[in-house]
């Protein structure tokens, strides 16, 4: 490999942290979803790097499944978000605080 393994792993960790910060600190529902996608892609990157390091293909196979799962997660999530946005007119996570106690 031209790029050292450690660097790719570090990049994956940085990407994951960016996604985590995005999904935890932002209040916009869509931004949270984007953060989740970035985290999943960071996992994919780490899988590919590790798969190359161990010279095994199963890590790369895992990435294909991550793509499929991420797509279905977005499908369900966007349906929920669009319906909620139509009902309340807001994408702000803090507006959804009807239940308390």
């Amino acid at each position: 490999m031209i790029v050292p393994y450690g660097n790719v792993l570090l990049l994956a960790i940085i990407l994951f942290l960016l996604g985590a910060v995005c999904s935890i600190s932002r209040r916009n529902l869509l931004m949270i979803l984007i953060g989740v996608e970035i985290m999943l892609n960071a996992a994919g990157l780490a899988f590919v790097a590790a798969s190359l390091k161990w010279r095994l293909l199963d890590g790369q196979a895992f990435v294909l499944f991550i793509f499929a799962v991420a797509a279905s997660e977005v499908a369900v999530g966007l349906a929920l978000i669009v319906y909620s946005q139509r009902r309340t007119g807001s994408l702000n996570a803090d507006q959804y605080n009807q239940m308390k106690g």
Partner: protein
Amino acid sequence: MQPNWVDILPLILLAGGGFLVFCLGGFWKARPQGLLFAVALATAIAAGAAAILLKPDQTHFLKMVEISGYGRFFTFLLTLITTLSLLFSYQYVKLRGIGGDEFYGLLLLSGLGMILVASALHWLVFFLGLETLSLSLYVLIAIRKPQSASNEAGLKYFMMGAVASAFLTFGIAMVYAATGKMDILQSLSPNIQAVSSPAMLLGLSLILIGIGFKISMVPFHLWTPDVYQGAPAPVTAFLATGSKVALFSALLRFAFYYARNSVWNDYVFVFWILAFLTMAVGNITALAQVRVKRLLAYSSIAQMGYLLMTLLAVREGGVLAIMFYLSVYALMDLGAFGTLATLSEEDEDLDSLEDFRGLAYVHPWRSALLTVCLVSLAGLPPTAGFIGKFILFRAVLQSHFVVLAALGIVTVIVSIYFYFKIIVALFIQPAERKPVTPDLDLFARVAGIAILVLILWLGLLPSALLSSITRILPLSLQLG
């Protein structure tokens, strides 16, 4: 080794039944009423029967799914949970017009995901099972679209669940990066040199966080009361029991494998703190609740705390205790939330403690079942909850975690107060407002009687289940 497809018949049945329900719902508009329910129920029962009757001669299917002992035990338990949830939900969803193909189909697929999670031997199967389970549950929780609470609960569970599963996926990636193994047992086994490398530790803690979200371990429990309150009551019953049993059985499997390393001792204190916090926060916050669903949500957090405490004893007898208590917990919570579903009014679930006043005089049988479940949750004899807690605490004491066990017993005593708050409400002077509750239908009656009998039977004669768990345990978890 030639794979034998009959060995995974429960999984095939659940997947096939789920897709059949979707096809019937989509293409046969003039179908007889109740057909979808009948198909779903038959599928769940057939899967449960297959799990019990089939005796596979291998322990695993392609090293992906465990089909003996531990895996089969949880396959049966989870199909039982699916069946009982279906029985409780028939009338509920019919009256509210949400009993389409999506409800029954997703319930079966969610059950399939739970079984995959509980019996996974491969990280990929675990990941896919978890996603099948979660994606179906997101929709099931939000299925009462016009009701804003249901929608909000679905949205909250989705946001939390998506973040949690992203954490978990990255955790699996880190474990794979550190060990190069996709096999769960091999990646956690002592002969891997990387067992205490930074990547491995990062991976394992992220996996713990991801599972912690799903089993509502403190401090990742904040979604629990809102989601339990907003979701339709039969879905709450399914969510509170099925997804927690599945994820906890996976956590127990990981802990069991990892505890064979000597590094496990260095992390015991993490579980000590988490278990204590979960028990304490769950039980103490429940004291202040005036809504029954939220109260039961905090109670289920506390129950997870007792189980986490026993995870410390995973090397000595903890596995047996946790498997027994998970079965008991599933029955108790299904009974409590299921009764809530049958008692609920049409436009909103029965929730406020005020509405429960005097219900025992109007609906004696349902109140009796609710009382037995609550007494069992509180851990008083002669119910299964007492025996279960007794075995849990005995296992913890045998592993010399005396302080934690003592603190746990204090929280159990505190918890008796809020369980009896509901029971007392059932039996005092009736309230002004009389909730209009539908009559009990046949299916809910069957489920209620089954739960009542099982809780009392396991409470009085626990040896049958205990000896069968002891018999299957040595055969399993040792693969590789």
